[in-house]
């Protein structure tokens, strides 16, 4: 299937043995080492890899936009036969935007905040074409309409902060497409966007590329995205291209061990927490051999009865191998002779949230009457697009902010009545802890890992410095896989995964009954994410904690949570057992969300380019 795309004899872009070196305080670092790639006209080439693999550096090298510290130290980049590495600044400027265009991650910060989007598109046009001001404006209007921005006449005079992230990305696309370039480089174009927006943006990007016979380089950490939209995929690791092939080949029969690890660590619609590492992270396997069950790779639940609370336990029982459900904290389930469920004597839920409303001034309603329960030891997922109120709910529930109205009962106490400003004095503070999104930003840079973990123990449990505190901190750290040699380090001396572990160790230090996880793995690479998810899953079983798990990644929620709540514009549209909800969603909004998850099917024979074909 890639044959038709690559038959073109002279590729549009040909990179040969590219080396890029960065000068750092610790000496030169080779960010890209002998990379060779080719992109043909009409082709979409994916470059996947984790942070630090050199994929963005390669893209910036093609654009010659490396910052001062970075230098191309070897190799060639031939674009339409011309070696870009030897071009002067004037020739480069003529090429950039006109023949070579790039779309960046984080569209909002990539647009000039004090210039209207129309002016910015017109700037690009006028840089390469002899157009009058009004002609450029008119063309900008066409371009905005071309990227499906509604009411382009209105939007053309909008500033970036007045547009959503998805809209800003479309404006970027309009700018990049303005002069009809031959090659478009898209560097993580949809990171930070909702799945549905991601799908809309990517579909459109792919359609534009096909329509105009351009070539595209899609740089992403999301294997699903690469599988769905690319003709060929190059996998990069530590500055090297380790494997290049069609996505079907790369993802179903990866030949390089790194690709195999990457594929295994990427959540798919059928993966389970335990299956996230094919090779197995030695650590998690050694610590908990019983966690690793073979799993059912198909993930199809036979004879599933869609149901709500009554059937809940039954479903949990059936899907036990895939969904981490039955654990010490749960009530035992009994079946009678005919196999039907005997409703067990359920204890009252750990937390009951009723009619939660959060209204900001000027009538912006972030949360509009949400009610739900969290049972002891249960894990509940909150999903929804940005602006759906999931983070607000998480913050209200862990009593960092006060709701406008609504009650929150926790463990028999009405904690909703306690103001958030004094909740740190409440006895329940130690029972509700939170793991924050960015493990780097949520740690005090002047606290060592030990101090960070000891902090809640000192403040909430009143432990004084001494053996007791030290033992407790070390115990938490060990539980979270932090060796004693790491405990004295400061956040900047730890890797992303290690910081995440510190954040988790800090949260579990007071042995909370409820842990709130606000996108705990969003900032992590997939392989690290896999390990952290396994850690979280194991901790919950061991300590019998309940989880409220907030994430935009539906696959993560499906694996981690027994029950899932889907939010839209501050209201619950659907909730139920994860196994049911993800296989048979009833609400169209949920269906849209689930359908929008880009995915690949490792081991499946069908080429995963169906989506692409449909677009072409």
């Amino acid at each position: 299937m890639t044959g038709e795309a690559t038959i073109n004899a002279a590729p549009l872009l040909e990179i040969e043995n590219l080396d890029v070196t960065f000068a750092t305080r610790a000496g030169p670092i080779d960010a890209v080492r002998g990379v060779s790639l080719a992109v043909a006209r009409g082709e979409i080439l994916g470059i996947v890899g984790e942070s630090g693999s050199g994929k963005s550096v390669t893209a910036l090298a093609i654009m010659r936009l490396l910052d001062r510290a970075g230098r191309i130290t070897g190799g060639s980049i031939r674009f339409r036969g011309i070696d870009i590495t030897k071009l002067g600044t004037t020739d480069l400027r003529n090429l950039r935007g006109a023949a070579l265009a790039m779309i960046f991650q984080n569209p909002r910060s990539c647009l000039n905040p004090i210039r209207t989007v129309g002016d910015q598109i017109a700037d690009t046009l006028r840089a390469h074409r002899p157009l009058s001001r009004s002609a450029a404006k008119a063309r900008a209007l066409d371009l905005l309409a071309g990227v499906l921005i509604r009411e382009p006449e209105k939007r053309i005079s909008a500033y970036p902060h007045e547009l959503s992230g998805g809209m800003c990305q479309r404006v970027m696309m309009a700018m990049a497409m303005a002069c009809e370039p031959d090659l478009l480089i898209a560097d993580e174009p949809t990171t930070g966007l909702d799945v549905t927006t991601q799908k809309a943006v990517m579909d459109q990007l792919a359609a534009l590329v096909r329509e105009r016979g351009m070539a595209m380089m899609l740089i992403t950490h999301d294997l699903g995205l690469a599988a769905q939209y690319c003709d060929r995929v190059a996998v990069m690791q530590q500055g090297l291209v380790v494997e290049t092939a069609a996505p079907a080949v790369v993802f179903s029969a990866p030949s390089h061990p790194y690709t195999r690890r990457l594929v295994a660590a990427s959540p798919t619609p059928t993966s389970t927490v335990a299956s996230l590492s094919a090779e197995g992270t030695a650590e998690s396997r050694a610590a908990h051999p019983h966690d690793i069950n073979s799993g059912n790779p198909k993930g199809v639940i036979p004879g599933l009865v869609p149901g709500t609370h009554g059937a809940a336990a039954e479903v949990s029982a059936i899907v036990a191998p895939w969904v981490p459900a039955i654990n010490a904290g749960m009530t035992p389930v009994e079946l009678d002779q005919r196999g039907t469920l005997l409703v067990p004597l359920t204890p009252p839920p750990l937390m009951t949230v009723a009619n939660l409303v959060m209204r900001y001034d000027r009538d912006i309603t972030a949360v509009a009457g949400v009610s739900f329960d969290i049972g002891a030891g249960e894990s509940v997922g909150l999903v929804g697009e940005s602006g759906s109120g999931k983070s607000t709910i998480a913050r209200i529930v862990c009593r960092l902010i006060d709701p406008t109205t609504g009650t929150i009962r926790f463990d028999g106490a009405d904690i909703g009545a306690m103001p958030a400003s004094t909740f740190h004095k409440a006895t329940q503070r130690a029972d509700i802890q939170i793991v924050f999104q960015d493990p780097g930003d949520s740690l005090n840079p002047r606290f060592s890992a030990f101090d960070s973990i000891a902090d809640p123990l000192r403040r909430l449990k009143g432990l004084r410095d001494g053996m007791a505190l030290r033992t407790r901190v070390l115990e938490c750290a060990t539980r979270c896989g932090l060796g004693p040699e790491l405990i004295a380090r400061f956040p900047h001396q730890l890797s992303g995964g290690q910081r995440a572990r510190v954040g988790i160790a800090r949260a579990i230090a007071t042995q909370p009954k409820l842990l709130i996880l606000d996108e705990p793995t969003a900032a992590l690479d997939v392989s690290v994410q896999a390990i952290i998810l396994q850690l979280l899953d194991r901790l919950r079983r061991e300590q019998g904690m309940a989880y409220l798990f907030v994430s935009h990644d539906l696959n993560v929620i499906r694996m981690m949570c027994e029950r899932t709540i889907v939010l839209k514009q501050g209201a619950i549209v659907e909730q139920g057992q994860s196994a049911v909800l993800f296989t048979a969603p009833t609400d169209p909004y949920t269906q849209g969300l689930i359908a929008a998850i880009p995915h690949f099917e490792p081991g499946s024979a069908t080429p995963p380019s169906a989506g692409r074909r449909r677009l072409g």
Partner: protein
Amino acid sequence: MTTLASISRRTGTRFVSSLPALLGVVVFTFILMRVLPGDPAVFFASGPNAGKAEIEEVRRLMGLDQPLLYQLALYLRDIATGNLGRSLTTGQPVLADIQQRLPASLELTFTALVLALTLALPLGIAAALNPGKLVDHAVRFACTLGVCVPTFVSGLLLIYAFYYLLGWAPDPTGRLDIFAQAPPRITGFLLIDSLIARDGTTGLAAASQLILPAATMALFVLAPLARMTRASMLAVLGSDFIRTADAMGLSRARVVGVYALRNAMLPVLTIAGIVFSTMLGANVLVEKVFSWPGVASYALDALLASDYAPVQGFVLLMASIFVVVNLTIDVLYGIADPRIGIE
């Protein structure tokens, strides 16, 4: 439309919220003047051999025998009716004195600020475009020098070089050569008044008197402006949207001049406002060195003479100017940055 409305609303709230600060300044200066040593009654009695009775009489006439709170109340009532009192040294109402002298200070400060900005912006931009290079170090050196040398020293140096040695500048005494004919007073700004009167020679004479003191002050405030421009430009040049502009192939001039500079100007605007207010009050040394008839030297003279009213009037004036300048900066900021109107 809506932008304008939001700006005026913000201006209104800002103005109202600054009133308590103004009141605080007035009360504070009033009390400070009373607490400072020096008895105006003694000072203004007929002479060193004035008798006790005469001093008491002066004190009674000046109202200084009344309780402090009563004096304060009277003072506040007077301010509310626009009466700032009468200077005992000049014998004029303070308001008239200030009206006479404020244009001189404003003209000097404005010119100095414009001069400083025309120097600081290119220097800051040049330094930001070549960080760590020779230009950067040269600009840093010049700024440090400007800030290190006190204004009276640099003023005297300039006078020595341009008046005494080279003879290019007129003698540094006042706003206008004594033989020159002052233009009819309309705004009080000599440059503007002579422009209105279409009097080129007077204008030129006034400008030549102005240039040395203005340069002295400009040198002093060069550092904060140039350093801020550099820092702000560097931050903006490293931001994502500059990379985007480069990736779209915009010309270097457009990237630096339109994309980077306009964004970098926002913090510089704030600093310029603060610098302006500070200069207006702190240029007393320059006014003294160049015999400039401005408000700062007026206030200093009054302070030395224990003349309460001009000092209090001056402090009130400075506080009001500070409020007005900050309001202006706020409005300009709202126009320059579309994101401001949102909150």
